[in-house]
């Protein structure tokens, strides 16, 4: 088991390095840097001015060097600029002083500066993650119990009317992407169009003070899309368990049907959905980006869109590190959890 986790961790770190390098490479392509220089400096810069602007700020170094500096394995640049100013990476492009650190990268806990928000990336990412965490918490509270109940009810008696109706419901919910259900829900429940204006169509106010009124629509929009998928997985695993030998034995012994479902079947049927719920996190991330944009809730997904559309290199890297980390950790948890929950699987 220990070796298994170690190997998985090794693959995880390799994946994270590759992914951040790809993001680094794509954001540091010259047209992107040119756009960055023009938005940060001014839009009428000539090509030479762009060159010197980028050179003074360390952007024209070779890619592996820049990546090493960002990572914190190479010393941060100190560049004497053509305009007479000396800029050091570790002083946020200020003049270097006595106690300027030599290394300042992710490994040293320095996430860099956002060029759009003019703030520390770590600061931005942590506050935004907190907001998204609040959203995700409520999504989970709605989605997981809902999906499990639907799945168990449908899988209890395969092929019954209940099964067929609930399965159709879950197909409908998986077929509705967030930007469709969000738009429909807002149009129905937040505009006077249908006379059912019960909720607020934006969640901006929910950042400080989340109420049922302003938080229900975003939460339900994300939850609906994931719910159908988890419910279908739960149903599949439940139907499989219900045909197992020990369930037949219990039935022949005369155990009542509710007792069979709750005491015998449920525990084993919930192993597979656990994995699925864990693997849903990356998808939820997707939904979060869409829903936060749609409802103007300034969380992590909203930050991703802002960073990506403005080519805010360090913020984008910070965001991708966090999201890749979330994806890989949930994969690891789902693998380990599966082994713990399912005594039939042993990893030697």
């Amino acid at each position, binding site marked *: 088991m220990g070796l298994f986790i170690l190997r998985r961790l090794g693959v995880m770190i390799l994946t994270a390095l590759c992914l951040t390098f790809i993001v680094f490479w794509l954001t540091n*392509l*010259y047209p992107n840097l040119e756009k960055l220089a023009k938005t940060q400096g001014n839009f009428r810069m000539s090509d030479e001015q762009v060159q010197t602007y980028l050179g003074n700020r360390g952007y024209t170094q070779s890619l592996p060097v820049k990546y090493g500096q960002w990572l914190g394995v190479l010393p941060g640049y100190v560049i004497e600029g053509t305009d007479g100013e000396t800029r050091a990476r570790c002083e946020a492009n200020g003049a270097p002083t006595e106690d300027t650190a030599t290394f300042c990268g992710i490994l040293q806990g320095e996430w860099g500066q956002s060029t759009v928000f003019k703030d520390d990336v770590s600061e931005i990412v942590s506050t935004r993650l907190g907001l998204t965490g609040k959203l995700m918490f409520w999504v989970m509270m709605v989605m997981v119990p809902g999906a499990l109940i639907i799945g168990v009810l449908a899988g209890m008696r395969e092929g*019954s009317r209940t099964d067929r109706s609930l399965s159709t419901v879950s197909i409908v919910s998986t077929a509705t992407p967030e*930007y*469709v259900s969000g*738009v429909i829900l807002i149009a129905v429940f937040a505009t006077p169009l249908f006379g059912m204006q019960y909720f607020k169509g934006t969640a901006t106010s929910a950042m400080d003070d989340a109420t049922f009124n302003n938080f229900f629509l975003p939460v339900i929009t994300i939850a609906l899309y994931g719910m159908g998928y988890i419910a279908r997985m739960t149903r599949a695993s439940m139907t499989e368990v219900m045909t197992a030998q020990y369930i037949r034995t219990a039935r022949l012994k005369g155990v009542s049907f509710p007792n069979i479902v709750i005491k015998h079947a449920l525990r084993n049927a919930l192993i597979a959905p656990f994995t699925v719920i864990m693997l849903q996190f990356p998808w939820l991330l*997707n939904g979060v980006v*869409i829903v936060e944009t749609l409802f103007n809730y300034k969380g992590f997904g909203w930050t991703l869109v802002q960073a*990506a559309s403005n080519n805010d290199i360090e913020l984008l890297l910070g965001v991708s590190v966090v999201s890749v980390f979330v*994806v890989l950790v949930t994969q690891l948890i789902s693998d380990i959890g599966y082994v713990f929950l399912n005594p039939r699987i042993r990893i030697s």
Partner: protein
Amino acid sequence: MEELTWTGSMGAILVPLITLTAAVFLTGVVVQLVMGAFAPEVKLQSNPDGTLQGRGGLLGRLENYTGWLFMLLVALIVAFIVIAWFMPYGDAGILGEVSKRFLPTWIALIITFVLSITFKRRLGLYGKLFDSTIGMIGFGLVMFWVFTSIFVGLFDMIGTHDPLQQISGLKNKTPGVVVPEGQDEGFFPHYLLGGDNLARDIFTRMVHGSVIVMVIAPLATIFAFMVGITLGLPAGYYGGRLDTVLSFLANLILAFPVILLFYLLVTPEIVATGLPNFLAAFLFVFPLVFFGVLINSRYKNQAGKNGLLLALVLAPLAVLYFSTISDAGSPLYIWPEALDLFDIPGGILVVFVSVVFVNSPTVFRIVRGLALDIKTRDYVAAAQTRGEGPWYIMLWEILPNARGPLIVDFCLRIGYTTILLGTLGFFGLGLPPESPDWGSTINEGRKLLLIFAHPALPPAIALLSLVLGLNLLADGLREESLKD
């Protein structure tokens, strides 16, 4: 000309009827669900008169009644659609006029269904689809949009105006608004579903959007399958280091948040570097490789036939390949203009490439899993003993036997690709902003959603119905193929 109401003159009778039936039906379903949770196991009972009974009692009767109510509901909606065809213009209301505009689609749908149901026993898996209600509903929804896109794209039939034409005074107007006299040459007197933010006809834009989706989504899925199959089969069959490397790469792409990847690939700055063109050059080679290997592995001992077939298949594909990837504006300008059959507009190529790129790792994983499973079968061992080459075994023994799950996944994946296309449009990436595709129009509509909700709804519902249709179709296919 007056403004159209939603349902026109027939609405007075049919709408209350439909509402009532739907309400009773839904209540029935809910009651049935609650009762079903407590009901005992269904056992076949024999009645004294010699008949068999599935489920008796209150629940059994309720199940029957809801079944009938559902039929009644469908019949009423069909009546609504059909009656509208025979009413003079303006009487049938907005919904009726919309139904009339879709007349070619309806006719094509009816012909398809009548023919398919008549000959369903001779049509294999496709015919079996018509045994399952879910599958039929799904097939109907999908074919509705397929026929619509054909009639709109090839014959320019269903739309009422030009998708880009702006008529002053109709900005954000509600559905059924009258077009002012003398503004429109091919005069259609109303904006059926209202005007959008730039005073264009929402209905026309919605039906034109279906063409874009119907061209890109299935094609992109086919390409993703080509890539996934060509890489997944050897990964599963050979295993070992090849498998490790390919799986690592696939997991790498899958670990990327899709939206971040889109933002990184589709922004104009990245397009300017030509990266998407290189990616296209890489991804579009796979169909050539696939067909080349497919033919060569089978006919390599019959040199003449092999060469002929290879030339027949690969030459047109190669011309298509080079016409696609070579583009005057991009760094990959390698193909003479005279032989360049067509130019794909930059935006569409980029969108296409990124959708294929995102989809292929998942297909790879599915194919690899199937290959791992099937390669242990006896017929594979028999082929190995016969001395067949590895590619023959992969493409002519394993692949045909993996077709069931692959067909089902293909349907699901077209739906997923449609969702991805919509996501791209939703963030305003790739396609030009005036493009009528559903994602972009939803994006346009959502900006003023709280003030004018009507422009965003039709494309949203259209996208929903297509994806739902594909999902139901996949479900029906899975169910029917499991019965074999």
